């Protein structure tokens, strides 16, 4: 795995000192066989499309909004607007599928290993250091939307 000691000293100090909020849930949801399931892809790479408002880099506590992108998008049109300097932006710009693996998931779907891919992809920007509104508002909004779309599984891909 990524090692703490490999992080920049200032980031390492932050990671070790930050008061991480514990996830609260009663039980793990039962998952159907992926081959018969509908999966939603959620990224925190801060991707937007050219006609979308970029994520707000300087918002105190982080920008907890999200964008809905079509799974039919051309990944070469994705724009990385993530504010963090703690990861390899050059790699993400060169290979956006690192953060949004649409072609590979479609490949798995074609091979019968994945039932279907939800037609909307959800794009967040990580580095949300004050997640109160995310927990109270954004997450329930997204979960309700996915339930309404008969989504069974969600894959969350950070950067």
């Amino acid at each position, binding site marked *: 795995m990524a090692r703490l000691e490999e992080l920049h000293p200032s980031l390492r100090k932050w*990671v070790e000192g930050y008061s991480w909020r514990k996830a609260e849930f009663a*039980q793990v*949801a039962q998952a159907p066989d992926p081959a018969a399931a509908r999966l939603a892809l959620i990224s925190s790479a801060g991707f937007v499309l050219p006609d979308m408002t970029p994520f707000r880099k300087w918002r105190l506590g982080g920008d907890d909004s999200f964008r809905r992108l079509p799974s039919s998008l051309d990944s070469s049109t994705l724009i990385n607007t993530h504010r963090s300097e703690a990861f390899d*932006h050059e790699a993400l710009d060169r290979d956006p599928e690192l953060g949004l693996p649409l072609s590979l998931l479609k490949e798995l779907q074609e091979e019968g290993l994945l039932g279907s891919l939800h037609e909307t992809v959800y794009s967040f920007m990580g580095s949300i250091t004050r997640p109160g509104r995310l927990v109270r508002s954004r997450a329930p909004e997204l979960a309700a939307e996915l339930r309404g779309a008969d989504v069974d599984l969600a894959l*969350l891909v*950070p950067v």
Partner: protein
Amino acid sequence: MGLLAAELDRQGIASVCLQFLELVARAVGPPRALCVPWPHGWPLGPPEDRVTQRATLLRALELFSRRGEGRPILEHIENLPAGSPG
């Protein structure tokens, strides 16, 4: 992402989070976490290495079927060399 994942599971949508740091996975405790061996920015593996990226996605799909008492249900991908089929 772990906090978002928890809400999804609470509403019946099973989630898997990729994670870079086990420390963070254990501190936040999402329902299911797959710890990856690559640096931040490479959640699926090295850029343009479709073989490794595909192997990571397959491991993530497998994790949906895992049952476990711990929170999170946590697995690691071993440190694969670039291009390894996993």
